[in-house]
């Protein structure tokens, strides 16, 4: 069978040998490729594999709550979920954006904005695209784990202020840490952390803020969690107990609700702040998620300055309340005899200028006691002129004016007590003697904060104990002494007793069986400069009332100021001071039911604290959220 291709023995041995070498060369080349990947770059790829495999999910530590002096919750936290976007897969993310936006009920632009904002962050770090996930968002993420693997949920603890704007200016608010704060924190803070931005939240941030934990989980190629490597539990922040008495706070709050001004109530023996109100105010809950830029701008630029804590930052002319400083200075300095009298015809002439008394008819012959009770301006003009600005300045500063009280809140203001040196330094001219006359009745350049007024009155009534006011219950107070003689204290406090109990400017505020004393003030302008600038001189007034009880060594001292009313301080600010004093005594004597407060308006106090360890440990498994009905809306009551 002659088949054409058989038995042809010619073999291309040379070319066959070449193929052998080609084979060896090929295998060598491939081995070289493996050698490069597995030996040379092995560490890099091992890291990449680890990053593929392991996903780190932060466990956010709940922030410590704030309790009032009786343990009632003023501020707490609740668990909620944020939506995370995993961006280590850029191509995929781009493609899925419309679907994601739709599923999370956001617009595509909003979503892109969130992503653009995080451009600078490393790609492997997930970003929060929606701070508070709704139940439908959670359902969406759970049901699309397969086809949208770039979404993840993060359990966070949201700050909650159950009483809304009550105490807002003192408590402050939280927000995302700023770059400067991160730099200054000695690596204790990291970008994205929630920290206190103002008030007590900021002051006691280190205590309140816990340490975030971390959970490292193994995920498969579609992002499904298949195992857990390690878990470092979050250390919850510690709660702090405040000196605030919720009941008194509620009294002050409801009175001030529709007013502008501030109220501070302090324990005259310890410096504990029992109530603090500043109006207008804000709702710190607005800051607990992420405050919309527009809202933030409006809060910041509102001419009524809702973010200002008037109790410690509002620098206002004290008006006639300053007469207590004047009286103390007069008696202590002995510049004038204690029984000095002046005749008040309703006005007086100093340096060729007429200064009016608030009562056009005049007070007639007036001694110090009568001058305090009836708040006679002419009497204080006269002693002011006799004492001179330097002496007034020294006593005012001695009693804590013109300097910070040292309260445990950030950004306290100093107020201003003018002096010759100050005028020289700031305005480069000599002191006009006429200014002394204005200062004598708490006008002119002198400004004070409500907290300074409280402290000053407490010091006068207690013989010179200048307490350091504070909001934290467990606080070591520094007491400063500015000794006052027994005679001085007796005479000035008798005067303040008379204001209320002897038909003085606060006669309408009288309380049965309580040595309620005080001093009213009606300042004609907000401040020396501001008043001029605003051209409101003499039109609007700040109505002050500073009251305390009992007459000597007070238990409770309260300063209230109502701004922008044209009425007398005893009328505008007096009632709230009286109400708080009454509420204090009602509580003390066991007549809790008589507390002068609008009970119906009192928000129900939540029975549990988020610092309850059972709740802190209730870290919901991210992978199992779907099965829990409505996660993130944990009912705190259920934990008890």
């Amino acid at each position, binding site marked *: 069978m002659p088949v054409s291709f058989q038995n*042809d023995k010619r073999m291309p041995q040379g070319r066959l040998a070449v193929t052998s070498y080609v084979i060896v060369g090929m295998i060598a080349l*491939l081995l070289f490729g493996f050698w490069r990947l597995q030996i040379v*770059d092995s560490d890099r790829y091992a890291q990449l594999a680890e990053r593929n495999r392991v996903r780190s999910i932060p466990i956010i530590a709940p922030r410590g709550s704030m309790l009032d002096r009786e343990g009632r919750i003023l501020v707490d936290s609740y668990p909620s979920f944020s939506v995370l976007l995993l961006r280590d897969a*850029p191509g995929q993310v781009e493609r899925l954006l419309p679907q994601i936006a739709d599923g999370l009920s956001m617009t595509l632009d909003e979503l892109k904005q969130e992503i653009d904002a995080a451009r600078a962050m490393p790609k492997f770090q997930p970003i929060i695209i929606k701070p508070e996930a709704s139940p439908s968002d959670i359902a969406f993420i759970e049901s699309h784990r397969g086809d949208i693997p770039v979404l993840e949920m993060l359990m966070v603890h949201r700050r909650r202020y159950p009483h809304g704007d009550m105490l807002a200016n003192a408590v402050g608010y939280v927000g995302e840490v700023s770059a400067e704060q991160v730099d200054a924190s000695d690596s204790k803070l990291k970008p994205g952390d929630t920290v206190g931005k103002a008030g007590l939240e900021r002051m006691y941030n280190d205590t309140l803020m816990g340490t975030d934990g971390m959970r490292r989980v193994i995920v498969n190629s579609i992002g499904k969690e298949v195992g857990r490597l390690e878990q470092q539990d979050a250390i919850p922040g510690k709660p702090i107990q405040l000196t605030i008495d919720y009941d008194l706070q509620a009294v002050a709050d409801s009175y001030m609700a529709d007013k502008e001004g501030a109220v501070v109530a302090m324990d005259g023996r310890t410096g504990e702040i029992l109530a603090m109100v500043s109006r207008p105010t804000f709702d710190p809950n607005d800051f607990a998620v992420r405050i919309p830029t527009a809202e933030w701008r409006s809060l910041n630029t509102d001419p009524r300055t809702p973010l200002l804590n008037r109790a410690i930052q509002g620098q206002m002319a004290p008006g006639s309340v300053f007469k207590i400083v004047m009286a103390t200075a007069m008696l202590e300095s002995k510049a004038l005899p204690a029984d000095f009298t002046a005749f008040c015809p309703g006005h007086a002439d100093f340096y060729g200028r007429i200064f009016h008394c608030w009562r056009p008819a005049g007070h007639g012959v007036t001694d110090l006691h009568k001058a305090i009770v009836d708040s006679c301006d002419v009497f204080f003009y006269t002693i002011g002129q006799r004492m001179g600005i330097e002496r007034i300045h020294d006593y005012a500063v001695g009693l804590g004016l013109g300097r910070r009280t040292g309260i445990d809140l950030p950004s306290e203001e100093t107020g201003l007590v003018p002096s010759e040196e100050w005028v020289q330094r700031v305005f480069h001219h000599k002191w006009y003697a006429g200014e002394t006359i204005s200062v004598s009745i708490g006008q002119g350049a002198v400004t004070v904060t409500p907290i300074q007024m409280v402290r000053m009155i407490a010091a006068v009534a207690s013989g010179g104990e200048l307490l350091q006011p504070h909001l934290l219950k467990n606080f070591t107070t520094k007491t400063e002494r500015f000794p006052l003689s027994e005679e001085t204290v007796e005479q000035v406090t008798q005067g303040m007793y008379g204001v209320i109990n002897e038909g003085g400017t606060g006669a309408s505020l009288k309380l049965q069986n309580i040595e309620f004393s005080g001093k009213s003030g009606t300042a004609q302008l907000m401040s020396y400069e501001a008043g001029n600038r605003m051209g409101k001189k003499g039109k609007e007034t700040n109505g002050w009332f500073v009251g305390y009880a009992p007459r000597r060594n007070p238990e409770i001292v309260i300063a209230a100021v109502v701004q922008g009313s044209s009425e007398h301080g005893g009328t505008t600010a007096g009632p709230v001071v009286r109400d708080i004093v009454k509420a204090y005594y009602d509580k003390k004597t066991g007549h809790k039911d008589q507390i002068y407060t609008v009970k119906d308006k009192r928000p129900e106090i939540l029975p549990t604290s988020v610092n309850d360890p059972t709740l802190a440990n209730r870290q919901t498994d991210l992978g199992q959220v779907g099965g829990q009905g409505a996660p993130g809306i944990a009912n705190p009551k259920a934990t008890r």
Partner: protein
Amino acid sequence: MRQGASIHDYDWWLLITAYAICGIGVLEIWSATHASHLAGMHTHQMYWILLGTILMLVISRVDYHRIMDQAPVLYLIAIVALIAVLAMGHTRFGAKRWLPILGGFLQVSELVKLIIIIVMARFFAEVRTEELGLGDLLKAAAVIGLPLVLIMRQPDLGTALVLVPLAAIGAYLAGLQWKHAIAILALAALMLPVGWHFLKPYQKDRVTTFLRPEDDPRGAGYQILQSKIAVGSGGFWGKGLGNGSQNQLGFVPVRYSDFILAALAEELGFAGVFVALLLYMFLLLRLVQNAQRAHDRAGMFLTMGVAAVLGFHVLVNVAMVIGYMPVTGIPLPLMSYGGSATLFVFLALGLVMNVRIRRFVN
């Protein structure tokens, strides 16, 4: 003529090498799938190996000259099968490559590869001149061109490309002239931009991603990137069988088949890869040696055809795993899971045995 080849005439070194590779493959298929819903694949693979062994023994008993006699008929069958698969084939993974046969699905192009090896061997064995003339070259191109185009239509670029080195090695051994070689290369370079237009979008993607994988780490580049991560993270000794995170967590694409070497590299490290590649080298060199010792030119071409196809598979697959070549979907011979592919390799080895046991004839 010596009657009946004895059992000793088989190339036992070649067989041992082949089964060693199969063993590694089965082990790695087990490792890659045991913890998933694909568990049990390694058992299937063993059945394929067994079936392949039987087919190998059968085909080795039929004198390869008689098989080559039927080359024109086989060629016709191949063309018809390819047309049939285009007309009524079963679509899987977006490509029509399977024909329902014997209750299963046969990947027709694997059968075609085998037939083209035979056809090419026959074609070149008939060339009587010392040097390969231009006419023969054009005829060879035509013979291989038809099935190539049909396979590309499936589309199965990888298998289609396998036919090219097959023809190239054949031509080279048949006395390809340098001037022709250079002309072909030049022509190919010129045709490259034209050919680009005929690629499917996903094929273009694969090429572009291969050139710039960073552009799209989740799309087409994802597979190569994940494969490289698997390989690189394996280090020298590997993470241990069943411990490769890239493999076990599904980051390595089709880890039991096309990317099985990535899974192996991750779990058994450079050491494992080294052994595997040496086995392949030994297998290929052994094929060349069998060709050198073949009884005649026909046997030599047949054996070298097998060597060309297997060598090309190894090169393209392994290069893909380490990112040296784009993703083509070419399995690693004897190691990747797959019935048709495994049967093809054993049938091809059967042809080689066939040539070997007849080396002393006459």
